[in-house]
């Protein structure tokens, strides 16, 4: 990550933090929602955007993180430990989800992740001792490093700090051999093998790391809602995350945050516009249509998402992606040399 990108990352985080802390509980909740969604989108961007492995199990992986962190913090552990636990179990489960990737590709692998999502949803409902079944696991607000997280405002700083750290970590990762291996695997597994890359190992690493970040995001989601419920981690959530990274820009550096902010805040914007115009009922009904249409429009006209649109507005701006992510997987183009701009 270049110094400029680091400055932008920290600057955006600080701005979000100020908004969340200054504008009351509802704003803080929205900031947390965007930060958590960005984390989840970042993890999926790693798996799909950088490594080219389609996964429909993101919602369930967040659930794994939420339930794990909830159980650990309800047992008295510090929230920081519980979040780490959520990440670790998320990684472990994600690795299991990714196992079929060893033998399956493309659509078949995607279906396998769909099955994993369904299985995990079912497990959330029946593993009563751990999940409290369909009633959901009520999570007592924890302390994180001794600071009580008993309000939406108190969660703003941890959410943003974790987001920035995850962002830095992924950016750093993409400058390593493993990160470059992801990109080559994404473009062509055959070429990757020809270059001596252990494709299975690379895929599994993507799932492990992506699953860890998803588990951490799920832990924060559990703390934000004070509840881990099967209804919150369904296929709908997985689809939302896929929408985030497509709209934001698959395989781009700022794409997950831009996409997360867009997907989380667009319903709010539609709601407020509808209220102002006195047609909120109608616009509410059109919300799902609006999302579906946006995804189709982006796929047709700008598969590189909002990141590319923004980069056209500012050629040397935030759309620049240093990790060789020249566009959606499958597009031709030379990977750029990683490094600062």
């Amino acid at each position, binding site marked *: 990550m270049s110094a400029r990108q680091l400055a932008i990352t920290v600057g955006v985080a600080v701005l979000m933090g100020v908004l969340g802390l200054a504008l*009351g*509980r*509802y704003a803080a*909740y*929205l900031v947390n*929602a965007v930060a958590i969604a960005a984390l989840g989108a970042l993890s999926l961007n790693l798996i799909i955007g950088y490594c080219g492995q389609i996964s429909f199990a993101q919602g369930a992986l967040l659930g794994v993180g939420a339930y794990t962190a909830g159980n650990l913090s309800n047992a008295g552990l510090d929230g920081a430990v519980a979040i780490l636990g959520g990440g670790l179990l998320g990684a472990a489960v994600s690795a299991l989800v990714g196992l079929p990737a060893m033998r399956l590709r493309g659509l078949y692998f995607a279906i396998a992740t769909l099955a994993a999502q369904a299985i995990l949803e079912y497990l959330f*409902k029946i593993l009563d001792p751990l999940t409290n*079944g*369909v*009633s*959901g696991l*009520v999570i007592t607000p924890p302390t994180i490093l001794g600071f009580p997280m008993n309000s*939406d405002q108190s969660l703003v700083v941890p959410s943003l700090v974790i987001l920035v750290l995850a962002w830095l970590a992924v950016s750093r990762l993409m400058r390593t051999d493993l990160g470059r291996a992801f990109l080559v695997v994404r473009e062509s597994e055959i070429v990757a093998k020809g270059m001596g890359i252990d494709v299975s190992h690379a895929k599994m690493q993507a799932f492990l790391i992506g699953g860890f970040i998803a588990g951490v995001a799920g832990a924060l989601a559990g703390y934000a*809602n*004070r*509840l881990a*419920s*099967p*209804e*919150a981690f369904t296929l*709908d959530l997985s689809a939302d995350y896929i929408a985030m990274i497509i709209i934001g820009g698959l395989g781009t550096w700022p794409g997950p945050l831009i996409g997360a902010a867009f997907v989380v805040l667009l*319903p709010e914007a539609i*709601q407020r516009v509808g*209220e102002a115009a006195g047609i*909120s*009922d109608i616009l*509410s*009904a059109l*919300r*799902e249509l609006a999302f579906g249409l946006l995804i189709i429009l982006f796929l047709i006209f700008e598969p590189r998402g909002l990141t590319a649109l923004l980069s056209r507005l500012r050629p040397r701006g935030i759309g620049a992606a240093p990790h060789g992510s020249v566009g959606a997987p499958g597009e031709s183009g030379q990977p750029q040399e990683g490094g600062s701009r």
Partner: protein
Amino acid sequence: MKLKPAAAMLALTIAAAAPARAQVNVCIWGTITGPDALVNGMSYGVRDYLEFLNGNGGVAGNKVTALLLDGRYKLDEELKIYRRCVDEEKAVVVNGWSTGSAKALREQVNSDGVPFMTQSFASEVLDPKKYPYIFMAGPTYEQQMEIALRDLAAKGGKKVVIMAPDNEYGRGPVSVVRQSGIIKKLGLELADTVEFRYDAQDLTAQMLRVKSRNPDMVYIQASGPQAIAILRDAAKVGLPAKLFVGNLYTISPTIPEQLGEAAEGFRAIQAYEPYGADIPAMKQIEQFAAKGKVEKKDIYYMKGWMEGIAIAAAIENAIKKNGGHPPDDIKQFRQDVRDAMEQLTALDDGGITPPLNFANHQGSTQARIAEVKEGKYVPTGDWISAGS
């Protein structure tokens, strides 16, 4: 003659010095779009009653702003909306929707100290001591089920099957009823509990399983859309509608409209007078309809209208207690409204239900069974007090 300008100035001074009317906000969310949108008349009913009052002098002279939001029957959406209602809109009363959100928010409602009228009838959120801010407006799901079971026992039936979705709305009440032992106490046998996805469109497999149990009654712990799927697929496998009894969220004109003959004989728990009944509340609704639009002309709208009456009465009493104007401190205002709600006894809701009594936070625990006859729900007996 000099008196006139002086009088005018005095009047203006008094008017300027009079305290500005505080905003009284009520926040409502419901499934405007989503799997149980069929019963969202109750959210519109609350909003419309408050609008009706605004057109007739307001509540204790104050205009009430009723904000209706779409929870979409999604838990995270409902949790977000709750925060907006409490923090941003500074609602003095919140009218929530799902059982899941009521359970998820019960501790927060306590700590926020905001009167919360839920559309859920889950007994697990009904505890005036533990959850002093949560209210509901009718018999709990468990009480409704008990009414149906008593009716079956009285008619000599033995075997019952319960159908419910695999979410909190379905499993929660069924679990409570099973654990209560009421089925055995009434001399009945629970032949099976059949679960299904809340948004499932094809329940043929489930109906075949029900048929294999040969029950005397099938109780549906679900809402209108699910009842439609159940009755439609029941007809496919040869199960008559008269075997089925649904909770009060399955009493909807859409069921006989969509199913025709396949709905004849279906029974449901009825806790409110239907839309169009010859009752004083209907006269009010007709007055409102003359100037505004009634979104849903069904029994759930009547429920919402009734809830609006209760909410408005509590707000009015709280304002009167504060000398005729809303307290400046929203926390105090919410506390006063909560106390006033709990003190509502023998409240006339225009005949929608028997007189309301919120001392137990339920308003009314009376219900009766209504049966679909020639496309309309017809009561088959008197009001029964649940739990008696």
